[in-house]
């Protein structure tokens, strides 16, 4: 019989939205985790629950609810294998989900949403911009809500759930979709510049090659963009 109601899980989940607020180098997200667990600590009725979770914690913030759901289940069941094991579980689940979450969010969903947002702006389709934001955040918040429930249902079995080939297939699919969106944006930019003339396309591709070379040598994109500014002025002054 579960001691935590969906309302309790929702409260923990709401606090997890601010997991990153207290990020620091030594414990990373540990204060944010304690803040979230604090919402359910009294209901779980476990002595010294928070004291067991003061150690280092770091995972992808969007997948953190899954790990926290698992922790809540283990704590509820009484952590029969001892406090060291809940800590090991936490680190194992956090590491597995950090890697998967970074691929899914930084490498796929976020770039996909941003490229679609850029396409909407290029076409002056402002409803599209709003739709991208709404869809992205709906997916994120629904995923977080389901994530904590999933983690709470699985408990110890959580780590195995994320190490199978099915997860890898999902990640590859998401990354493929992001690549398609990014390719579309790149193609559209070339297409738009070709409308301004062949010289514009050649300049664009030439500048892209220069950026590629210089960023590989460690120059950052914003600084390089700023360095190109006076150069463009000099070229404009020299051209008839």
């Amino acid at each position, binding site marked *: 019989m579960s001691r935590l109601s969906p309302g309790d899980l929702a409260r923990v989940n709401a606090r997890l939205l601010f997991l990153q607020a207290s990020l620091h180098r030594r414990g990373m997200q540990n204060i944010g985790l304690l803040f979230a667990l604090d919402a359910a*600590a009294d209901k779980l009725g476990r002595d010294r629950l928070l004291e067991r979770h003061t150690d280092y914690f770091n995972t992808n913030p969007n997948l953190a609810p899954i790990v926290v759901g698992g922790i809540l289940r283990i704590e509820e069941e009484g952590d029969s294998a001892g406090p060291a094991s809940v800590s090991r579980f936490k680190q194992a689940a956090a590491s597995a989900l950090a890697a998967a979450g*970074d691929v899914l969010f930084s490498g796929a969903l976020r770039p996909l949403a941003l490229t679609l947002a850029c396409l909407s702006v290029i076409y002056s389709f402002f409803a599209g911009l709003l739709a991208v934001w709404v869809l992205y955040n709906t997916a994120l918040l629904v995923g977080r809500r389901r994530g904590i429930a999933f983690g709470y249902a699985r408990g110890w079995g959580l780590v195995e759930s994320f190490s199978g080939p099915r997860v890898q297939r999902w990640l590859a699919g998401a990354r493929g979709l992001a690549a398609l969106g990014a390719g579309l944006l790149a193609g559209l930019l070339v297409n738009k510049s070709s409308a301004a003339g062949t010289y514009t396309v050649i300049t664009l591709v030439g500048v*892209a090659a220069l950026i590629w070379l210089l960023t590989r040598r460690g120059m950052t994109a914003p600084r390089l963009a700023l360095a190109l500014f006076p150069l463009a002025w000099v070229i404009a002054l020299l051209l008839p």
Partner: protein
Amino acid sequence: MTDLLPIALIAGLLALDERAGWQSLLSEPVFSAAIIGALTGVLEPALQCGLVLQFVWLTIGQPRGTRRANVVVGGVVGAGTVCLVQNHTGEPNVAFVVAMGVVWGLVAGEFGARITEMTGSLRERRLEAFKLPADRAVASRNLTVAVVGSALFVVVAEILQVLFLLPTAAATTEALAARVTPSLAAGAKLWITVLPAFALVAVGRAFYQSRNPARFAIIGFAIGVLLL
């Protein structure tokens, strides 16, 4: 300049989303420019500025914790400059104002990253000293204070940066716009035209090494070139 304070407050809220909240995308320049443009009634030029800044800052698959320009301060200062100047002077040379907005956005992004690093280490020192009290009620209160305090610190730091940078950027842009020669305006336009090259590089770098996504990117590219 009556819009300055609301714009700075928006920057604070966007910083809360980016560094303390769940990163809803609003802090990305293409979205922050839309908010500021809608607020000030200068949507189209603000979006042009936000879009170009987005191209330069587009990152795909960058690991968490990698140092990045402060896109909140940069995006808000860039779009804010365009909106304040357009509202104040109604400058006909919109392309030049947008280019200056991008310049200031990039400068503010770099400056903001430095300031965030410095203020961040101050904030972290306080958090690292956090000790969980044995008393449950006190522990609960201290955790709330730590999290809310840390979030508010980020908000205030970002508001102050915008309050310092935005008037400077707007005043400089206004002064330059009044004196700009046609060739310099053409230079600014040329610069804006080549900045999408940063997005091409970001896309190429993200996918060229892995075969399967590269295939999808090529298909997308072909569709973009031929059909869109």
